[in-house]
């Protein structure tokens, strides 16, 4: 199904998974490596160098005047 994964990536992902308290079997780690290739491509499409004022979508918004009941 998949080609052998880059050993460095595999080691990094294993370490990251451990940091997240996940203990994975060799097969589960293989799956994670496979999925990560797609994840990396998606991460590459997220602009990171943005103006400081650009806030995340979930920033809390206070009610406007008149909204209170």
């Amino acid at each position: 199904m998949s080609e052998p994964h880059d050993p460095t990536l595999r080691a990094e992902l294993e370490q990251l998974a451990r940091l997240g308290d996940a203990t994975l079997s060799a097969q589960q780690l293989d799956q994670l490596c496979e999925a990560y290739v797609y994840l990396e491509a998606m991460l590459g499409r997220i602009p990171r160098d943005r103006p400081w004022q650009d806030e995340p979508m979930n920033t809390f918004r206070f009610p406007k005047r008149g909204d209170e009941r």
Partner: protein
Amino acid sequence: MTDLHELSIAEAAPLIEARRLSPVELTEALLRRIEALEGRLHCFITRTPELALERARVAEVEIARGGWRGPLHGIPIGLKDIYDTAGIRTTGHSRHAEHRIPKADAAVTDRLAKAGTVLLGKLATHEFATGGPSFDLPWPPARNPWDTERFTGGSSSGSGAGVAAGLFAGAMGSDTGGSIRLPAAYCGVAGIKPTFGRVSRRGVIPLAWSFDSCGPLARTVEDSAILLQAIAGHDPADPASADVAVPDFRAGLRGGVAGLRIGWVRHFYEQDRPARPEVIAAMEEAAGVLRGLGAHVEEVRLPNLKAFQACYRIIAMTESFAVHEPAMTRHPAEFGEVTRYRVLPGAVLSAADYVQAQRYQRQLLADVLEVLRDHDAFITATTPGPAPKIESMRPEANFADPPLTAPFNVANCPALSLCNGFAEGLPLAMQVAGRPFDEALVLRVAYAYEQATPWHTRRPGIDAGGADPP
């Protein structure tokens, strides 16, 4: 009278109100149909025939006493098995919740019960609304009634398949990145993802808090409007529930599209994720139909589909991993393989990745709203082709191919999918999307198209037999 399973909600309701159709008779007919077809369709996780008959009898007595509650009174429905039902197991189609029996109803369950609906049972999904189709779970995946070898779409798979097969006229689904619209498309029915905040998510097993939306699937747009009416409205117990007015969705259906400006998002399915020629042709015809009805249909450009996919996936994956973190880290093998594939990568995403994706969401939302300043609605394809073979589905497909549905989750637009043609005897579908909280206009455009075309009248040949799924 038409076969009872062929009746839409809008057709059955006046008959029930006039006491020319008994809710018990209707429920019994559908229970017989479920008994006959369920072995091939696998729509249900849990069936509730006794409860259904009890509720149908109660409805019949209430209506006989002059207590008709409205168009859903005595109407049998199904609920995706992520909606909590007090005293009835709610599993999320997962081994992890195989014996979970909630103590309270979800808000939607409660609203539908108050409207007088008759619950036929809890419906198949993908594991926790993400991991499917899967063959390593306690229950098999649902099958498409147009061809049981085909994928239903997901994750509201039992809802789509059951509505298409006439097991019930309406069902509840949920949509985080397309999970109402995709099964609606592959099964040839209508399904609307309301605006995030329009329908309470209280008591619904979460997939990703930023996007989870509850909504109905039904055979017609009018039935979708009736079901949405019953479940829409503010709920202080859901922190994302919006306190906004709920219009009369059904009353606005017949307003027509003359003079409306409709943005045609062709690049999604012609360039960003090239669709099959039949899909492109069906969209051309649909645009022509809307023009013929008086709408101004013009091509518009939104950000690339892959931009929406990246934003959606990073946020959804981080949140779904957070939802399942304790179980996923301690007992990953107890999840289905597809669920692990789609949720576990959330363990290696950083906090900065998540926040950057949320900053990007705000930008993408602004880009979409800018186009909606000059347009009343969008149309685009729902899928790049008809339902694929279920055996061909691979876990990585969700990562490799950008879904045509996710942009309207990222931009929080209400979006409805409805049938707009057939290829190889299988349904094709179009999305109609609109401004946040303008479901009424989305329904109006979809209704105008539906009434001008014959697609919603076609039925799968499931009654004629066919091979059982392996």
